[in-house]
């Protein structure tokens, strides 16, 4: 059975949201949406869950903080305590105030880079990756809804097309696989 992908192209994010709302309320699953900028309020309509990247950042931050504290303790307290200007590195807790700046910076360093790398991997955006947007205009001024017949067995291509035409769609394209 041939698999058809329908691309509904809109010119305005609000019109796209109305279109998506209409599809979803008629029981049609929206595969994805491509847009030049984030369309606020779209995610709950097409059923996208909140990303957990903030938790990832927090965990990388905790990791960075622990690593910094452990490292500083090892370098300056355990392995080679130095006495500089009559201010010896005697005990970790006594010197802790002086260790806060580096600990803070290292926490931020790990949180930011850990999250950024996770973000790039999760989005499949890395140097040399191919672009997968269906239409080059989706990074310029068009907002595109992608619907696959494979996800919507109860609905014919014509029915979906008819439903889309009742919204303020700019053009409808089909691609067969």
């Amino acid at each position, binding site marked *: 059975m041939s698999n058809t992908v329908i691309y509904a192209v809109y010119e305005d994010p609000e019109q796209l949201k109305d279109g998506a709302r209409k599809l979803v309320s008629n029981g049609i699953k929206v595969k994805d949406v491509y847009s030049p900028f984030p*369309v606020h309020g779209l995610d709950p309509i097409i059923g996208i869950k909140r990303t957990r990247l903030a938790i990832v950042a927090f965990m990388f931050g905790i990791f960075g903080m622990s690593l910094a504290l452990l490292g500083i303790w090892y370098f300056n307290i355990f392995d080679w305590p130095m006495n500089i200007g009559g201010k010896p590195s005697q005990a970790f807790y006594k010197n802790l105030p002086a260790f806060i700046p580096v600990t803070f910076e290292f926490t931020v360093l790990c949180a*930011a880079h850990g*999250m950024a790398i996770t973000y790039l991997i999760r989005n499949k955006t890395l140097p040399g990756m191919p*672009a997968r*947007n269906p239409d080059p205009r989706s990074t*310029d001024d068009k907002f595109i809804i992608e619907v696959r017949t494979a996800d919507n067995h109860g609905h014919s291509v014509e029915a979906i097309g008819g439903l889309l035409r009742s919204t303020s769609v700019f053009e409808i394209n089909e691609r067969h696989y």
Partner: protein
Amino acid sequence: MHSEAAIRQPLILGHKTYHDITNDIVGPIENKASRGWYILFTIAAIVAAYGTGCILYLISKGIGAWGLNKTVDWAWDITNFVWWVGIGHAGTLISAVLLLFRQKWRMAINRSAEAMTIFAVIMAATFPGIHMGRIWMSYWVLPLPNQFGSLWVNFNSPLLWDVFAISTYFSVSLVFWYIGLIPDFATIRDKVTSPGMKKVYSILSFGWTGNAKAWTRFEEVSLVLAGIATPLVFSVHSVVSFDFATSVIPGWHTTIFPPYFVSGAVFSGFAMVQTLLLIMRKVMHLEAYITRKHVEYMNIVIIVTGSIVGVAYITELFISWYSGVEYESYAFINRATGPYWWAYWAMMTCNVVSPQVFWFKKLRTHLGFTFFMSIIVNIGMWFERFVIIVTSLHRDYLPSSWNMFHPTWVDVGVFLGTLGIFSTLYLLFARFFPVLALNEVKSILKGSGESYKNDAAKHHHH
């Protein structure tokens, strides 16, 4: 979509469409550069080459080539370092703090301000590097296992805190900037026709697709990065100020330094943003996006931070008397009336007195005057660092060691050189990178664009 009060001034002028925004920003990248760009680039590259030569000379001769002496053993090197780091504060402040405050006007300026930040921090990092003398030993600042009985770096030292602060700040700013650039590179990739450019921008855009989940993640990452970059911005210049504040030199040993340095940094950073953007909006025809209102907003930031700096100067002066410490009072009396009085009063005039003229709406919305003032502020902030560093050092506890600082041609050449390298990098950025966060600007078009706002207002009256 956010609807905005009709009395708020539009942030995008004229009748722009999404496609117009793409064309306005990608057009200059696709087309040949103007003659003006080539002229500026040539000048900048010559200065940069001269500066690089001076740096190489310095490295081969040692820092004796500078005008330092036994008493004034820190001068232009650290002055330039702090000046550049300070300038590097506006970019992340604009993109992080203003993002958290949901200030839409940041969108037209954040990209170029972040670029400025990154280039300024590179220039700043040059100075601690070259002032080590033996720059090939610079990896010693890292806690690496070594052959000296494993002698580790000292984590109690503010100079080491600086290493961590500056490198974290640089790399996090770079990542923040690049994550914002990816979708815009994708726009360029999908628009340009020349196959070579398409190839380059598709590598730079990392295969960005712009699907719904990617945008959700994009917004989350921007928000979280802004959240952690905000305390980072404040920490960086606080740590820079600790280089002085934790010492026992009168004039440096003051607890007011961290907030005073941070506000001074924001002050000078915004001034540099004004200098660069006022030229760029004209040369690249961005008047519709970087409007008079944007310039006014930045001038308001300048007046606020300038006033904080003014209060800090006066507080510092008062405390030097109130503390009853004679060395402390002498350091400040000497600043204002000693042989470096001209530097002190240049600082006072440029940083405290002159920004107050921005209370007049006519002046803070005047573009030519703003440009002039931005240069004044940059000069003033350079003098601030010079005053703090050199005037505190040049009169030692022993009058027999009192000395003046005289810069050599190498001091001047290295400083000019960093200005040249900075300008070269910035011009390359303006030529090949999207100078506005064009996709973010599109997202505010229907809320803050002039024609849409006016239509909405008309509609309301009917």
